[in-house]
C-alpha cells in the first residue's frame, strides 16, 4: 500500500486533503439528497419495493457513478480502477450518511425488522451517493489536481468529452433532478388530471428549456461543450437531450412502481410530466456537472 513512502505531493494527497475532500462529499451528498431524505414516499418505497428491485437500483447507481466519475470527476486522467474505487467509496459514504440521517429523523429505530431498515437506507443512500460524487467534484477548488487540470472547470483539459460521455452526463443530471420529484404523489396527480393538450405543452416547454440552457443562456461551459452552429444542431441537440431525459424519467418512475397497474396513457403522461424536471437536469448535466 502506498502509505508513508509515497507522501510526495504530486503522487499522493495528504491525509488532511483527503478529509477535506470527504468533507465536501458529505456536504454535497446532503445538499443534493435532502429533499429525498425528507420525503415520505421515498421511505415507503424503501420498505415496499421488492429487495431485488432495490438491488437493481444499487447496481444502476453504481453504473451511473462510474460514468459520472469517469467523465466529470476531478481526475480526468484516472484509470478505470481508480474510477471504480471512487465509486465504491461514494456508495459507502452514501450508506453511512443515509443511515445517520434516517436515524436522526426517526425513520429507523431498533425495533424495526431488518428489511424495513435496510430498504429505507438503501433507497436513500443511492441519491446521497450521487450527491457525494457531484459534491466532491463540484464544490471543490480542485486544489490537489491543479497541476493536471488547470484552474477552471476543466473544460479545457478535456478537449473532447465525446458524445457518449455527454449523454451519460445528461443521464446523470436527469436522474439527479428527476429523482427529487419522481417519488411524490404530485407527479401521478398532475399526470392523471392533465389533458393531452397540456401534456403536449409540457413536452414543448421541456424542449424549449433544453435548448435554452444548452444554447442560449451562456451557462458556464456552454461554449466549449456544445457546438451551437446552426439551427439544426440546436434542434437535434435539444431533441436528443429530451430523449435522454425521458428515458431517465421512465426508469425512475418504473423503479418507484409508478407503472404498476396503470394504463399506458397514464404511464406516458407521468413520463412527460417528470420529463420537465429531467430535461432541466439533463441539460444542466451536460454543462454544469463538468
Amino acid at each position, binding site marked *: *500500500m*502506498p*502509505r508513508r513512502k*509515497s*507522501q510526495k505531493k504530486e*503522487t*499522493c*494527497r*495528504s*491525509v488532511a486533503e*483527503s*478529509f477535506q475532500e*470527504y468533507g465536501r462529499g458529505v456536504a454535497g451528498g446532503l445538499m443534493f439528497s435532502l429533499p429525498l431524505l425528507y420525503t415520505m414516499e421515498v421511505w*415507503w418505497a424503501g*420498505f*415496499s419495493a*421488492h*429487495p*431485488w428491485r*432495490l*438491488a437493481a437500483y*444499487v*447496481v444502476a447507481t*453504481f453504473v451511473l457513478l462510474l460514468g459520472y466519475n469517469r467523465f466529470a470527476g476531478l481526475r480526468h*486522467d*484516472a*484509470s478505470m*480502477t*481508480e474510477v471504480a*474505487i471512487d465509486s*465504491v*467509496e*461514494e*456508495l*459507502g*459514504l452514501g*450508506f*453511512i450518511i443515509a443511515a445517520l440521517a434516517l436515524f436522526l429523523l426517526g425513520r429507523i429505530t431498533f*425495533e*424495526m*425488522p*431488518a*428489511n*424495513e431498515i*435496510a*430498504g429505507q*437506507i*438503501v433507497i436513500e*443512500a443511492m441519491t446521497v451517493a450521487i450527491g457525494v460524487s457531484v459534491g466532491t467534484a463540484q464544490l471543490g477548488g480542485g486544489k490537489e489536481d491543479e497541476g493536471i487540470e488547470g484552474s477552471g472547470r476543466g473544460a479545457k483539459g478535456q478537449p473532447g468529452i465525446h458524445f457518449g460521455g455527454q449523454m451519460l452526463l445528461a443521464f446523470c443530471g436527469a436522474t439527479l433532478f428527476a429523482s427529487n420529484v419522481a417519488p411524490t404523489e404530485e407527479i401521478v396527480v398532475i399526470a392523471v388530471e392533465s389533458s393531452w393538450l397540456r401534456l403536449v405543452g409540457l413536452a414543448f416547454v421541456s424542449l424549449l428549456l433544453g435548448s435554452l440552457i444548452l444554447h442560449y443562456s451562456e451557462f458556464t461551459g456552454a461554449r466549449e461543450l456544445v457546438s451551437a452552429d446552426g439551427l439544426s444542431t440546436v434542434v437535434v441537440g435539444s431533441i436528443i437531450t429530451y430523449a435522454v431525459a425521458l428515458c431517465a424519467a421512465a426508469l425512475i418512475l418504473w423503479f418507484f*412502481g409508478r407503472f404498476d397497474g396503470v394504463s399506458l396513457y397514464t404511464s406516458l403522461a407521468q413520463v412527460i410530466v417528470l420529463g420537465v424536471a429531467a430535461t432541466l437536469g439533463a441539460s444542466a448535466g451536460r454543462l454544469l456537472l463538468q
Partner: protein
Amino acid sequence: MSKPEKNWVEWAVFAIGLVLVVSALSYLVYDGATMGSDPPSLEVRLGTPEQRAHNFIVPVTVTNHGDETAEGITIEVSMENTGGGEPARGELTIAFLPRRATREGFVTFQQDPRTAAQLTARVLGYGKP
C-alpha cells in the same frame, strides 16, 4: 496506470465502502430470494387496558406476517358489556405496515374495558401501496 496512489484514509474509506456495498447487495439478494409472495397477513393483539384521566385506553399491537406491505390499515376493537346491549366500538388507523413489521397504537373507551364481557379486535381492511 498501475497501482492507484492513495493514503491510508482513502484506503480505509474504500474498505468500509466495499464492505457496506457488498453486504447490502448480498442482503438484498438473499432477502429477495428467501421471501415468499404472500399477501399481507395481519395479526392484532390487545394489551392490558389502563385507566387514564379522561378515558380508558387499550393498547393494540398489529403485526404483518405476510411478504407485502399493507397500507391504510383500519382496526376495530369492540367491547361487549356484561349487561348486553349495543357494543362500544373503538377504531385505529395505521398508515403503513411493512412486511414482518409491528406497529403499536391505542383505542379509547368511555366505559371500563376491564369489566367488559368481551373485548375483540379485528382488521377491517387495508390496501396495497
